[in-house]
């Protein structure tokens, strides 16, 4: 099936998310849509899928104009979508998820689960997916959940498949498997739209590349284009793809975690016996696919987890068992992985957000009342220093772009005297310009002699920042290796495989 988009425009209030975008995708072709977070890729696909109504422009399938009023219409027309945030119901089984909205029924609307099971098994076997139709989706690994999404689309006879940032949650190995699946689908004659901001993947699998910036198509490129060329098109200026940093000036071993074990509220062991230490002036980066215990590790250090055993020592003092406030007072800076959930109060102003971690004592609070003047002066200074692009310090943080929100969080956390910085996913969903800036700040913090723990699921970020790399898999340490370890080896370790000739610390 051939897809053609003509002059699609979508506005949200005064913001133009898609500006006259035109695109053609042929059957048997993988068409990559490359662009930064917030460039308008997902909006475009949601228009195509009937979730948004376009303000202007038309969608053509096999040269016929379509009028979708909802996802149901798009699906009926043969469009399948693998969403970035899986559209699966966690408490349903695979078969139930696949049949939902397209159920075969028997007498009086009773569900024919067997038909759905057979369908799942059939598609699963055809593409070698190995998916158990009766497994509950919430029990499945992320990579398998994604295959369920693909099965869901295929079971509705989709001829055009849209993959929206499909590799964000996958290991490098799973990513390779997904690429293979995409190639198989291409051989089967499906048209594929592949949305991503990862240059490497685009060059590996795409037949054609369209680059989008700020809601507009800025050009097309061949898969043979270099990383630097693609990045420059995507960002609109030449980009430094590497972070410049000097060799570390290592100091004392200031921060040490020993036998850390974290159990969550439902009794699942999230972190099992993690031991590591960081020296002053060193960045230890935690690599691993999302959901391997990273979140619980950082939260346990902060004192946000309930069932924790082991030991977390900073400057020789035990942090476990202390309240979050006591941990912060001990000099821990924390950039949480979800800035909107844990990092900021969206309805509060930039100035107010900048003092959230010191609302108890001077300089901003005296005898229970806010020192507004001091706070404003401080906020003005940080706005400048951290290059936060906002109208003024009274702007609500919720109205800022992701990159600027993150800069506010970074500014707040780095503007105290730190003894340790914990940065979880410091640049997730942030534009390339802000990534450069935040990375420089992290390196500067390290150079000032503070131990830094960076957690990232982006291998690029890990490699860029780390002096040493700790790979987590299933809540355990696979190994701690030097910062210049080759990616291939890191990728293997992220699947739990421990290389035999592993150098460095043994966990």
């Amino acid at each position, binding site marked *: 099936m051939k897809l053609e988009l003509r002059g699609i425009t979508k506005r949200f209030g005064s913001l133009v998310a898609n500006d006259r975008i035109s695109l053609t995708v042929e059957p048997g072709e993988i068409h990559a849509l490359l662009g930064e977070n917030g460039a308008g890729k997902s909006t475009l696909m*949601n228009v195509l899928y009937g*979730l*948004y109504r376009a303000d202007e422009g038309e969608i053509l399938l096999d040269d016929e104009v379509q009028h979708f009023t*909802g*996802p*149901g*219409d798009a*699906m*009926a027309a043969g469009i399948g*979508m693998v*969403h970035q945030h*899986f*559209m*699966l*119901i*966690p*408490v*349903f089984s695979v078969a*139930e998820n696949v*049949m*939902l*909205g*397209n*159920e075969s*029924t028997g007498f*009086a*609307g*009773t*569900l024919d689960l067997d038909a759905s099971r057979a369908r799942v098994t059939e598609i699963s076997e055809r593409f070698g997916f*190995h998916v158990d139709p009766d497994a509950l989706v*919430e*029990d*499945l*690994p*992320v*990579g*398998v959940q994604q295959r369920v999404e693909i099965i*869901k689309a295929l079971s509705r006879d989709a001829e055009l498949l849209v993959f929206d940032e499909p590799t964000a949650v*996958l290991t490098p*190995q*799973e990513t390779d*498997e997904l690429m293979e699946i995409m190639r198989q689908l291409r051989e089967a004659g499906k048209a594929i739209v592949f949305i991503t901001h990862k240059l490497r993947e685009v060059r590996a699998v795409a037949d054609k590349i369209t680059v989008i910036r700020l809601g507009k198509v800025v050009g097309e490129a061949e898969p043979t284009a270099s990383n630097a060329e693609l990045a420059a098109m995507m960002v609109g200026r030449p980009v430094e793809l590497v972070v410049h940093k000097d060799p570390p000036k290592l100091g004392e071993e200031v921060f040490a975690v020993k036998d850390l074990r974290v*159990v969550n*509220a*439902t*009794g*699942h*062991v*999230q*972190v*099992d016996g993690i031991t590591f230490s960081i020296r002053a002036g060193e960045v230890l980066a935690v690599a691993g696919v999302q*959901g*391997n*215990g990273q979140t619980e590790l950082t939260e346990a250090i902060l004192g946000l987890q309930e*069932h924790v055993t082991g030991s977390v020592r900073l400057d020789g003092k035990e942090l476990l068992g202390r309240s979050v406030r006591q941990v912060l007072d001990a000099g821990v800076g924390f950039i949480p992985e979800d800035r909107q959930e844990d990092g900021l109060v969206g309805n509060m102003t930039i100035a107010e957000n900048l003092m959230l971690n010191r609302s108890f004592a001077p300089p901003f609070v005296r005898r229970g009342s806010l020192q507004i003047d001091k706070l404003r002066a401080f906020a003005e200074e940080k706005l400048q220093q951290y290059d936060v692009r906002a109208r003024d310090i009274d702007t609500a943080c919720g109205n800022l772009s992701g990159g600027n929100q993150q800069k506010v969080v970074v500014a707040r956390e780095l503007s105290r005297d730190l003894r340790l910085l914990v940065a979880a996913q410091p640049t997730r969903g942030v534009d390339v310009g802000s990534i450069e800036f935040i990375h420089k700040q992290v390196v500067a913090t390290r150079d000032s002699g503070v131990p830094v723990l960076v957690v990232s699921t982006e291998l690029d970020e890990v490699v860029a920042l780390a002096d040493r790399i700790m790979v987590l*898999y*299933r*809540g*355990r340490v696979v190994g701690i290796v030097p910062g210049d370890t080759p990616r291939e080896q890191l990728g293997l370790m992220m*699947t739990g495989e421990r290389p035999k000739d592993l150098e460095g610390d043994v966990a």
Partner: protein
Amino acid sequence: MSTLTDPTSTGASPGPAAPTGEVVTLVSRKTPVVLGVLTVGLALILLFQPESGETTLRLARETDFFQLPDLTLPTMPTAWALTIVCALLTGESVRRYLAKKRTPMWLVAIYAIAWMTGFLVWAAVGETLPVVGLLAGSLALAVPLVFGALGGVLGERAGVVNIAIDGQLLFGAFAAAVVSSMTGSPWPGLLAASIAGALVALILGLFAISYFVDQIIVGVVLNVLVIGITSFLFSQVLAPNAADLNTSARFKVVPIPVLGDIPLIGPILFRQTPVVYVLYIAVAVVTFALYRTRWGLRVRAVGEHPMAADTVGIKVNRTRYRTILIAGAVAGLGGAFYTLVSVPQFNREMTGGAGYIALAAVIFGKWDPIRATLAALLFGFASNLQGVLSVIGSPVPSQFMLMLPYVVTIFAVAGLVGRSRPPAADGVPYRPQ
């Protein structure tokens, strides 16, 4: 206790629940503590208020086909024996807690029966306790609670918190009284009750689904509104024309042949009014529909992850409207119990907050129709116990007994309910783009 699952079984990367694949049982000491407190309480009652004499348990009614003989027990020895059983069960619960195991449900169930029997034997000293009457009455009193709880389960499974159950019950009772008075037959009244409940649900849906108003607030306001409207109509319209508008035709007890003659169970379950039989059907139909039909799958999908439902072409808000209307209709049926079974007329605020107890049953029953029904039956038992004990003249002050249903509700919801997980999108309005 920890179970280790095969780490290779789930593929390349871990599932979201447990990266290590290892699960430890986290035991709360809530259950052993609650059991211990109750055991000590019973022992203290027996110690400081000893009664001498015998207690007779009557296991059949005079009209029953099979006459089981009465059971006469020496009061104090029986009560103490049951207290010891309770103490042993508490000990077992403590032992399991120390061994980091959960207290199983069967233990709690046996404990509840032993404790209740012990207490009743003591409370009914020197009297005859009509066991069949007590249980049959409990079922009857639980009718509005069960209908209400079913309405609650349906609404919440679709993602709409149905706080307005009480309003649906009350409006149902009102409509049933008026319509059956006018027609002289209870069946049109039952239908009217259902429609009235759906009407209240429609208003709830309008605000909660279409206008994204906070569902808790709308629900509570609706309850107050229905109290206001029915009280106004009662005093202005019903009271002056009581003979025409507020003298409802009641349902009579209709024994089911054969089934009604089974000893013990028959008189309890199958010598009831038609409303109770409608209840059996309603529980079965709701359970089947929710878990086995296309409709139910979509309702649950909409309550768990509306966005996912939308992306497969399910109209989320239309599904929610349809479900909440059915929920209101079911809850409204429960209202009919008050004016078509209990008393032959409508009175102000005659539900006495039963809708809120039904809501507690929804949570206690973990959003499952069968469990919610059992929870509602428990609350019905507590209500009826109070009535029966005051009739046979027990040593417990009647004012205290009036608290019983509510005390049981609090204990049940706060103390004994395990970790329960509501539908993920419960109470969250869905805004399509």
